[in-house]
């Protein structure tokens, strides 16, 4: 019979996304076979994450400073506060950050408008974005939501709120991916790429 402690660990691991019962068992036995210091470090890291990491109260990025303070992006004086990039989630923010091309600030919505899932503006950090406009001199908002129906709906909704208060709103360009193949591009992508063509 498997000891209860192992069953409890397997049950917890199986709740992780993409982890089934089998994988959870494999991970549990791996932890058991490893030196005890590993399990202690893992447990400590898990607890530290939930205890220390919060959302920045301005841009809603992840942040591990004291309560009520701003994150590294918001506090960095070298980043242009007039330029704000709006993303759906932390993973998208990290993807843009990896390009090292963007030198402005962020705003994380923590989701996207999704009519079929019943996600409306009130469930996202949209109100907070509009409030930000009042105390920072933001000139341009780059909407970097995904180019799917939900992402487009979110971009259109933000445009409707931001344009009237005199903020420039731009959207990430859409089209053929680098190293992509015209022959395999779908008609919607090709049509967008044509519409957003540039002079040479």
């Amino acid at each position, binding site marked *: 019979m498997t000891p209860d402690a192992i069953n409890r660990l397997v049950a917890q691991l199986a709740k992780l996304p993409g982890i089934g019962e089998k994988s959870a068992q494999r991970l549990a036995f791996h932890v058991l076979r490893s030196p005890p210091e590993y399990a202690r470090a893992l447990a400590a890291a898990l607890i530290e994450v939930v205890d220390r990491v919060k959302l920045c109260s301005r841009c809603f990025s992840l942040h591990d400073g004291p309560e009520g303070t701003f994150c590294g992006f918001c506090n960095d004086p070298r980043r242009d506060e007039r330029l704000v990039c709006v993303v759906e989630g932390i993973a998208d923010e990290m993807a843009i950050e990896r390009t090292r091309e963007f030198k402005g600030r962020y705003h994380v919505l923590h989701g996207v408008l999704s009519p*079929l899932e*019943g*996600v409306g*503006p*009130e469930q996202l950090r949209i109100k907070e974005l509009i409030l930000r406009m009042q105390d920072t001199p933001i000139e341009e908002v780059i909407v970097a939501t995904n180019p799917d129906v939900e992402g*487009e709906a979110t971009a259109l909704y933000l445009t409707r709120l931001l344009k009237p208060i005199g903020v420039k709103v731009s959207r990430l360009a859409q089209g053929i991916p680098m190293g992509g193949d015209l022959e395999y591009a*779908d008609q*919607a992508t090709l049509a967008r790429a044509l519409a957003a063509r540039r002079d040479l």
Partner: protein
Amino acid sequence: MERFADEALVLGTVDFGDADRIVTLFTRGHGRLSAFAAGARKSKKRFAGALEAGTHLTARLVTTHGDTCRLDGVDVIRSFHHVRDDLAHIARALYCLELCRELSRDNQPNDALFDALVHYLGLLDDKKAGPTSLIKFELDALQYTGFMPHFSPCALCGQPTGDRPRFDPEHGGVVCAACAPRVPRGVAARPEVVDALARLQAGERKPLPPELRARSRELLNLFIAHHLGRKLKSVEFMEQVGTD
């Protein structure tokens, strides 16, 4: 394991695991069905952005042991991507897709509903579908699936509905003042709203003013929620973003 191809509209998708997607299709030949699209979120070439709500396509499917088919590939017929230029158009398109997802049945083809949905998405894509056309689509969709609401004459006695009509989804629609005591759960409806809906249903193509649309929306929401057992999620979305 049987292979077949069918004309289909994507009604909705749910991500599954890290790479896959389960797609709800409304097919011409087999009614509503769920299909498992392996690698749909990773492989750009195989499904090339086609597995999004509203795409009209030819689906290549394989039956499996369970209820879910396997989606082997697709050829896009029309992606209706101009719908995405306008928030109100997106909201209308998704509302129709959600309504059809609820009204259609597995393994029950419905040519009239399928054609109406393809036609309406086409109108939205061509920017020819205003808010009144959405109400007309709902009335048609309800009719094609056996839920036609009754606006005239009185659903109970067959007399004209008069100037104090009541609306009761449970009894199929509008009843006259004399029959009102028999429908205790009915709500008061304005005669001009009842009249406008009756005309739309009969095929009159005249845009309704915003006030009549809003009152018509209330009656239709009531009717649809009663017959489906819940309010559609995209209705709440339309309310929140202030569009109809």
